[in-house]
């Protein structure tokens, strides 16, 4: 039998067609059994177009009021506290999702020569601002940090390679790097809680607006523990609590001039 190019192409074409059809047939049979599996949100999940927060600083009188909320947040998210290890405090190793800041440090662009005495020493609760134009997202080379459709700037810890570009990009210092194994501090205190994973050495972490709680119909932990001092809601819904507060009160945002458009507002 003589082999010609013509004959070879015919056979090759016919086999390719046959294989393609067989694949489709197999897939059709496989999907025919039962319903197709799917994924969805919880029925009671809280959703919004743009989550935002309004912190009424008039309701925070002392360090204690602020610290209470920080402790709640750090507890449920397994944020390690290395100070417990009995070493002198090393600021570089500190992991914080929320912390207390003085007016002049929180609002550097509003720190005029003469500042209101009450505001000057008020304890300001600061956290990730979940910016509308998040510089950290642009800086992340692996897309580990990304902005969700509901405005939350979220992190995929699985994907973080620990390059810390996001920390350099964030003008608010909202991000912390795990220079040490966070479990060392958590184990020592025997206070790891289930329900939220810990992190590992070499990843960056920050506030996630309690995305894991919103998914099951709960408001963020700090909001819940604040007795109404912090409001949380949809900034794009004119009827929401946060929008009403913003309309009836004068509010400020951190480093407005940066153009990051923070989603956290402060009533002063």
């Amino acid at each position, binding site marked *: 039998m003589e082999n010609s190019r013509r004959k070879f192409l015919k056979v090759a074409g016919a086999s390719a067609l046959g294989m393609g059809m067989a694949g489709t047939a197999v897939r059709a049979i496989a999907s025919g059994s039962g319903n197709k*599996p799917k994924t969805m949100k919880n029925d009671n*999940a809280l959703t919004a177009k743009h989550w935002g927060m309004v912190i009424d600083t008039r309701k925070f009188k002392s360090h204690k009021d602020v610290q209470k909320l920080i402790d709640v947040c750090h507890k449920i998210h397994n944020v390690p506290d290395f100070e417990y290890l009995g070493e002198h405090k090393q600021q570089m190793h500190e992991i914080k999702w929320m912390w207390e800041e003085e007016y002049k440090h929180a609002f550097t662009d509003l720190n005029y020569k003469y500042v209101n005495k009450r505001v000057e020493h008020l304890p300001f609760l600061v956290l990730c601002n979940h910016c509308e134009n998040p510089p950290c997202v642009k800086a992340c080379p692996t897309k580990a940090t990304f902005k*969700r459709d509901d405005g939350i700037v979220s992190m995929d810890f699985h994907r973080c390679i620990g390059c810390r570009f996001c920390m350099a990009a964030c003008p608010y210092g909202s991000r912390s790097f795990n220079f040490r194994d966070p479990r060392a501090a958590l184990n020592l205190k025997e206070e790891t809680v289930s329900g939220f*994973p810990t992190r*590992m050495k070499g990843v960056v972490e920050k506030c996630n607006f309690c995305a894991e709680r919103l998914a099951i119909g709960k408001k963020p932990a700090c909001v819940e523990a604040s007795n109404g001092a912090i409001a949380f809601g949809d900034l794009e819904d004119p009827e929401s609590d946060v929008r009403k507060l913003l309309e009836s009160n004068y509010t400020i945002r951190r480093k407005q001039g940066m153009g990051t458009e923070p989603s956290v507002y402060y009533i002063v």
Partner: protein
Amino acid sequence: MNDKKLIITGVIIFIFILIFPFLYNLGGTTEFIDPVLSEKAKAAKFCVVPKEDMKVEHMQILDVWRDTVVRKGERVYVNSDGKKFTMSLSTGENSCLGCHNNKAEFCDRCHDYASVRPYCWDCHTDPKEIK
């Protein structure tokens, strides 16, 4: 040919190095012990997908789940029977470890035998281990 001793010594050392891995493992526990299915998993009879698929594909399923949860924010999986599951390793009764509540006898047994070291547990916690 005066190097007979040297050559024989060399050959013996070479053979020893060659068979060292086998000698090293001699006496070790290489016997496979079947993973134990927890009472709860036994009662449920059916995992998120059929058992055979789960054996082969659980790592891909978990990989897809983690992206779905983290990126899309969808945390509920509805399988072909219409049953709902929480797409989480260890959060709540309806998660992986909520049903397979014996990680040491179920997950670890196979992973240890196959010398697989998944890094899931570097961050995710087994509710039993942290109490």
